[in-house]
């Protein structure tokens, strides 16, 4: 534990993540109201409504709590996809090298060459609206960074003598990959996962801001979009547009701290 204590920043990140995960898990208990229940619109923050109500009279505080669930689910789920796809490609490219490596590198280059946000816009038009299609749209272009970094690390590991020995001993490839190579990647995988969660949440907030988010769900980006659409800025309804901005920044930073300082711990 000593490393963690010293690495204050990473600790802070972990605390933030833990806080949001807890809120997401116990959303139903914590939130005072059902976020989709209608009520008197545009109320100022008061005892009953901690953050006031939005244009439908729905309690913003409950919306924010449920928003954690969508934003977190979306961030983590797309991070899982991104890390999974990235590491599979990296393992194949790094371990086999040669033709496989060149093909995968070519695919990565192409995926990088395509501009990510417009492609996401395209995919969103394609897919049925909903959180899953948003996750898919976000992670389609986000895996390239992870793949590239993991690939160079896998190639490094595969040069190590003990891997070569394993090969000569005829140990089956999957065993080598998952017993020897993957554990070594644990550190990088963790940090890349954290970074891709923060990346995904940033993209989601961008998309919802452009009005392409999921209308049905209550994500932070969505709350911000409707706050902006209803001119809450000009009307000075700070309690409506500020909380989503702050929460998105804090959550994204939480994951970023874990990701960035996680790497620091390694070298």
């Amino acid at each position, binding site marked *: 534990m000593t490393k963690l204590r010293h690495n204050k920043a990473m600790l802070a990140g972990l605390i933030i993540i833990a806080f949001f995960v807890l809120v997401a898990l116990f959303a139903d208990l914590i939130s005072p109201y059902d976020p989709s229940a209608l009520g008197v619109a545009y109320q100022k923050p008061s005892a009953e409504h901690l953050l006031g109500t939005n*244009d439908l009279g729905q309690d913003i505080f409950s919306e924010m709590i449920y928003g954690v669930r969508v934003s977190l689910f979306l961030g983590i789920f797309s991070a899982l996809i991104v890390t999974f796809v990235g590491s599979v490609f990296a393992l194949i490219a790094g371990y086999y090298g040669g033709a496989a490596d060149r093909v995968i590198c070519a695919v990565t280059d192409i995926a990088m060459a395509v501009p990510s946000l417009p492609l996401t816009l395209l995919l969103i038009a394609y897919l049925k609206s909903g959180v899953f299609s948003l996750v898919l749209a976000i992670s389609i272009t986000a895996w390239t960074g992870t793949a590239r970094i993991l690939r160079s690390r896998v190639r490094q590991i595969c040069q190590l003598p003990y891997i070569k020995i394993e090969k000569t001993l005829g140990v089956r490839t999957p065993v080598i990959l998952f017993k020897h190579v993957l554990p070594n990647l644990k550190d990088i995988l963790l940090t890349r996962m954290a970074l891709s969660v923060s990346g995904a949440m940033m993209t989601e907030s961008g998309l919802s801001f452009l009005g392409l988010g999921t209308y049905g769900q209550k994500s932070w980006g969505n709350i911000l979009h409707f706050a902006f659409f209803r001119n809450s800025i000009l009307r000075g309804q700070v309690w409506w547009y500020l909380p989503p901005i702050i929460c998105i920044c804090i959550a994204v930073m939480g994951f970023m701290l874990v990701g960035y300082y996680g790497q620091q711990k390694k070298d």
Partner: protein
Amino acid sequence: MKRILALTLALLLCLALFAGCGGETKTNPTPAPGGTNTAAPAPTQQPSGGQETPAPTQAPAPTAEPAPAGPKHVANLIVGTTAANNTFNMTGQKDAFGRMNYNGLTQGNFFYRDENGDIQPYFCKSYEISDDGTVLDFTWHEGAIWHDGQPVTADDIVFSFEYMRDVKKVGSLSNLTKIEILGDNVGRLTFSHPDVYYWMNTSVMNTSCVYAKHIWEGVTDYSNVTGPEAAIGCGPFKLVSYDLDSQTSVYEVVPENDFLGEITVDKVTVQSYADQASLMMAMANGECDAYYTYASPIDATLIDTFAGMPDLDLGESPFAGSYQMLFGCSRAPGDDVNFRQAIAYAIDYPTAAATINGVYGQPANRGVLNPSIKGFDGSIGMLEYNPETAKSMLEAAGYKDTDGDGWREAPDGSAIDLSVIPQYSSNMEVRSRLGETVVASLKGVGVNCHIDEEAITNSEIWEDKVTKEDYDISITFCTSGMSYSTPFRYMLAELREGDSGWHWGSYHSQELKDWYYAMTEAINDEAYLENSRKLQHLADEEMFALTFAWQTSFFPFRTDKIENWGNWKSWGVINSETWFRITAK
């Protein structure tokens, strides 16, 4: 290291400046002003380097010595709009230029619709419809000139009607058989059917104006003409210059085309803003005089931040546009009128009104039409939000919660899960909020329902579903422009034989179809009003659709420099009469 830091900050500043204006100077193309005609300088594509002031055609108006006893001219009327200043083509209705021509800014529209919705002559001086509604006699202003200096001739008039009928294929002119010129400035149109009234009413706003023969003859692909000649008309103002970067277009007066009397405005500037918020801020600072965007008043949530501002009139008036909720009447449970009548009590109208129009939205009546629409029948009862009544009516109609899961089942025991489809559009915010309101209201009385997410993001899927009547509740929007053909157009389940077009309704009834067509093709007001009243009562009894709320529209304008504004209902102060009535203070 300190020295390096200081050095970099200095460098940073000049780099930003250099790159900033560097970018400015290095890309400064000045396209040669094209234009087919010579006499007057065609509207120039504004070089980004600045607006060069073209030499005015006639001698500059004698502003030096005091104007004669006549009204004080407005030097420069600045109209703020949210439509873009990109395309300048009189044959279409796109962008600010197209929408301003609803008010006859640069085009000689034959007629215009006045404050009370009656047809008044504009380019025409007078008109007379024959009793059987098949012949239209009209006279027009002599002395009108095209903006390129050429006079408007009788040939132009004849060419205009032929062009509209044959090239633009305006539906209501399909039965026009004869176009005659009976004397100078006197013409007659003869139809094979009593379509005069129908043509005048449906196309008064759709570019039915004089077309220049020497420009448009032989041009079939008219909407893709992007040269300066596409902006030439014979209206009171001509396009002088436009600047795409600052989204501004400037129009100068053509005194000869004084259709409704002396033109009291010398110059009109149309300035477009990215959104309503920045427009209102600009108007508050006096940067623009009045707001005009076709059929989209300033959002209620924005207006109360400017209420009580000095010299700023909010331009309040009842709004003709409205949001409708259509029942899926071709399948259970929508086909049961009792279910529909019960649901009519379940919808949370106050919240819906607030969502659509903020504090200014009022509950509507059961007749679908707004008070500001021609033919509104005030005798019809109001819609009422009363969940208890709704529940008791549902119980009475046999919709009980038989399996105890909290949701009501149909009388035959089958489960109910209504699919709610807001109409697809590029801005879905209000409609999806209305969808949420409907869903929450229905669940409040125990009727399970959900928003059809697929239709929200895909126009093809949406159109396919509503055409196949694959919905239980559909939410649509009828713009104020459609107020003549009324929201009932959206509720038609099928069209007249031979008519092809969209039909989104699901209430198959002969009366609805007959009365609708009788109304829109009425040859006189009485027929129009009578059929409209019948439709409203049909809606009241059958409740196949309802209007969420009556809205108030806001078209704000400043009152410090200009007076004699005329704020038309759900249209605003910028209308066909503005150019002839407003005067400087």
